[in-house]
């Protein structure tokens, strides 16, 4: 058995190993190419080059600024849309009596067996025949109808205290009114947890944006990053600055929304 000090020491060593990639991003992002590729390993740049940041956005070979904007728009629309559509459906399936509700719920459950990634060819066929290739709606809309998110909301609403809704009905509210005035305001924690997870998976998604983003104009930040790896010219400092910028929003999410994130992970058990 390890003593307490030994345990803390071993954990610390593991933690350092886990932080090495982050260290490399920061070091490379703020160095010159000469320092990165130099003969001897340099732990830190001789002087910190914040100029790399402006150089990144001025670089015209890869539309990085544009891709960042696309990712932000896609991430927000993806999150808001998924939450809206899936929470309404989850509530309907959990609470509103309807003769065929069971059968419909099974039709939703069946889709859980097939991960969306596996059917990207069929989805691409559909979206391209709609003329949505390289478009915002092509990036966002097909991903909104997540059977799994709907399922999570249904499970959550099944456990929502019925008394609160009954109080709303006494006040003369129908399902719609009760949902927006009572159920949603009392479920903000759950919504925040699902929103955090949904945003992260949307921001980090790669396969679908790669398939849809045929034009540079429609690239998301992940597609732009990927293109750096196959480019003819390699500018290490720019590539790593781009990586740093692409990760920053999510690191902020981690630092400030970790409570909801951990809650979301525990509730969903999945990511992306």
């Amino acid at each position, binding site marked *: 058995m390890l003593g307490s000090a030994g345990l803390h020491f071993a954990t610390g060593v593991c933690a350092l190993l886990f932080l090495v990639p982050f260290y490399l*991003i920061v070091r490379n992002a703020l160095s010159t190419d000469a320092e990165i590729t130099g003969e001897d390993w340099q732990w830190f740049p001789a002087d910190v080059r914040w100029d790399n940041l402006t150089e990144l956005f001025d670089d015209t070979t890869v539309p990085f600024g544009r891709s960042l904007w696309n990712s932000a728009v896609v991430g927000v629309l993806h999150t808001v849309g998924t939450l809206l*559509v899936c929470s309404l459906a989850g509530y*309907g399936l959990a609470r509103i*009596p309807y003769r065929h509700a069971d059968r*419909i719920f099974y039709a939703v459950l069946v889709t859980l067996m*097939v991960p969306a990634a*596996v059917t990207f060819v069929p989805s691409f066929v559909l979206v391209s025949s709609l003329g949505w290739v390289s478009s915002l709606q092509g990036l966002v809309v097909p991903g909104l109808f997540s059977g799994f998110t709907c399922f999570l909301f249904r499970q959550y609403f099944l456990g929502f205290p019925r008394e609160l809704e009954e109080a709303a009905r006494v006040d003369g509210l129908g399902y719609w009114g009760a949902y927006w005035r009572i159920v949603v305001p009392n479920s903000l924690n759950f919504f925040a947890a699902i929103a955090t997870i949904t945003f992260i998976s949307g921001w980090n998604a790669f396969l679908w944006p790669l398939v849809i983003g045929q034009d540079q104009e429609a690239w998301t930040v992940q597609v732009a990053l*990927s293109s750096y790896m196959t480019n003819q010219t390699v500018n290490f400092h720019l590539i790593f600055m781009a990586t740093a910028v692409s990760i920053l929003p999510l690191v902020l999410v981690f630092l400030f929304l970790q409570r909801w994130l*951990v809650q979301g992970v525990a509730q969903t058990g999945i*990511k992306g």
Partner: protein
Amino acid sequence: MSTTTTRDATRPVPAEAPAAGPRGGVRGSTLSFWLFTGPFLAGLVVFVYVPIGWSAYLSFFEARYTVTPDKFIGFDNYALMLTNGDFTGSLVTFTVFAAIIVPVTWALSLGLALMVHRLRFMKAFFRSVFFLPTACSFVAASLIWKMSIFSGVRFGLMNTVLGWFGVENTAWLADPDPPWYWLVIVTVRLWLQAGFYMILFLAALQNIPPVLYEAAAIDGARPGWQTFRHITLPQLRATSTAVVLLLLVAAYQAFDEFFNLLAKSTWGRPPLVELYYTALGDDQDYGAGSAGAVILTLLICMVTLLQGRFLGFGRGDDSR
């Protein structure tokens, strides 16, 4: 798919008696039902059911560069895919990959969870550190691995460190013999995922009643391996099973790191990467691509159904 929410998966709630609903009775609630679920269900049909159906249809046609083919060729696309060494090879690649990544991630995330669980100081800090890589995308992580850590040139981190011990530079990714690329592929996913599964294990560890350990101590069990083997591990069985199955399904969908780390190389292609090059590469063969998608869909359905068996959907608290 989750440890805590699958319990009711196959047990829809019985519809409430109409009397329990608000005024308006059955008619009003039918309208409400469609108002709430209509948008989602319409989207589900258009963007999930229609593509799968269309793809099944395309798979029986010769569909190169077109999605509205007219030449029916029966099962030729399936025969083509199943006799195609690249496609069957991709299934072998997946098998090798899963055989390594699943047990290794399982062990590491459990190990981290056990360590963090027993910490007395800075527990939240260490939990955050191990969890932080989850914020990175596979693309960003692949980039760090390919361009910095496992860069085949002299200034890559691994080659630098090994160089201090006099080891020659290694081409980690550019040479399939010896297959060092597996080390790169496995470590990148390990780094990204271990913290995530650690969180699941931590939650499960917190749910083990302390009284079990007290009872074991009274019975003379030595803390350490004995209590781990006979109390902790059995108590974690449901979570362990769930983690293994989640890892397996995630490995099946592996695309990002293979695509980016091994761009332009012909080795180490898992099924989705192979499918990408079939359907969206130079050939744009949607017929064969669709046949491949159907095959992969059937395979994953079989796995999911087996998973349902293992986890015992609807068996109540066992699956916790």
